[in-house]
């Protein structure tokens, strides 16, 4: 496999991406990720061989257009959409409400 010379992600950029993705990385993880990402991005270069200017992008897996459902109880009622289910899975709650740490530091 090729070395990290293909890398177009530097340490600073990785830290920025990790911040955007809300993931705390330790220095060892950063080092391994830089190596892996450089390697993986190297393999993406072959796509540049293809002229895709006139090819429309595929934006999903389905051929369906406007897949709406009836606004009916059997399609949207409390039971069938499982609304309210899962409140018992809250990591922390108070009076039935979800509790989170302060938003402002």
């Amino acid at each position, binding site marked *: *496999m090729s070395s990290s010379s293909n890398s177009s*992600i530097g340490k600073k950029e*990785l830290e920025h*991406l*990790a911040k*955007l*993705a*809300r*993931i*705390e*990385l*330790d220095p060892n*993880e950063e080092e*391994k*990720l830089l190596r*892996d*990402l450089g*390697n*993986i991005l190297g*393999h*993406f270069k*072959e*796509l*540049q061989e*293809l002229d*895709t200017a006139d*090819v*429309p*992008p*595929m*934006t*999903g*897996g*389905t*051929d*369906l257009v406007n*897949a*709406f*459902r009836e606004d009916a109880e*059997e*399609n949207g009622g409390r039971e*069938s*959409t*499982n609304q309210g*289910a*899962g409140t*018992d*899975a*809250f*990591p*922390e709650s108070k009076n039935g409400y*979800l509790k*989170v*740490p*302060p*938003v*402002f*530091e």
Partner: protein
Amino acid sequence: MEPLHDLTIKKFHDGLLDKKFSALEVTQEYFRRIKERDGEIGAYLSIAEESAAREASAVDVAVAEGENIGALAGVPLGIKDNILIKGLPATAASRLLKDYVASYDAGVIERLKSQKAVFLGKTNLDEFAMGASTENSAFKTTKNPHDLTRVPGGTSGGSAAAVAAHLALAALGSDTGGSIRQPSSFCGVVGMSPTYGAVSRSGVIAMTSSLDQVGPMAKTVEDAAILFNAIAGKDPLDATSVDHEFEADLLSPQLEKVKKLVVGLPEEYFIDGTDSAVTKEIQRVIDKLKGLGMKFKKVSLPHTKYAVAAYYIFVPAEVSSNLARFDGIRYGERADGAVSLNDVYLKTRGEGFGAEAKRRIILGTFVLSAGYYDAYYDKAQRVRTLVKRDFDKAFEEVDVLLTPVAPTPAFKIGEKIDDPFAMYLCDMFTLPLKLGGFPAISIPTKSAAALAPGELPVGFQLIGKKWHEADILGIGQYYEKLN
């Protein structure tokens, strides 16, 4: 009672009606075997003895009262642990969900419950269904039942190993780029990834929404067809699911019709670098089907070599978005010691996600970011169109395509875990068709009993036109009869 080795869904159903055994007896026999064997195999993350016994007993009552029961009534199944069953754990093999208990049933589970199927437990997978060996599970490494030093494949490795080792009569997996078919090949079972939209994904923990499909894993093609027939159909809770009427011969194919199907052999899938054991077995399958009178034709899928790169751009993009919900706020583990909300996110996700999840989230965030979006994400989506068009064109000439499932049989545990791209290449034959939403099945080239000592199972892949599951299941069922 018949030994579990000989049991199929069909035989189980007949035996149940003939009162050869009760559903509860068979369920208990499976748990006995799980306790005896799963310590070394590690197919299950959790078992559900109490609820399974209740479900099986209900079937026995129905049989005793002479009720009409369906083909899956009492059938003991393993369910991949990214599929929700109300009241049972659903971890997706992630530390982030280690104590999570599902609060509702997935659409496929609702359907199986209405048929009175029995759920033995939840099977191991690569964390959030990302990998090709089940080694990315946060909890355990599943072993290949044919050789405990090898991987079962992935990501539905637990389901494949469970079926192969007779720890479940059949199972559900999910397939994004090969996650049902590659482990099926490695473990010597049948596995199908249905047409995109054929099966509901409500209650399935999302990885790549434009590709993910739930599908059957079973000992025979007939069993896979029965299971697929039970889970397919429109679900109002999944807007991408489709109300499609499958051909009547999905379950009982006609030889005269099957023989007339023209089989395409894409030249890009018969390449140097494929293990000779695989090449030899695929040739044997082709010769056997020729013996049946089937016509073969060479075709070309010229953009095949670009599919892996395109896939590993838009898949991480979708992953980075889908996994944003795992933030420690509403469910799952919340990291200790965080003082602010932002801290909760950073620590929960930093401590909770494994290496491959982090790799894909960061990569996905990168390819979607301003300045790189056009060069990567947009480019990959255009290449996806080219790959799909290749298949559309080939299907103007032939009815189905036949290829290997994977370039090698099961590899050794640890062999590829440090080289992410080598792991990604495991899917080179299984992922291109997914870009167009086509159905495909992996079928063992020979039965487990026919394997020579030390020989590893290998699967062949049949790719069908959209909504033509009957074609690939039909050929598969006749191949099994030849074998």
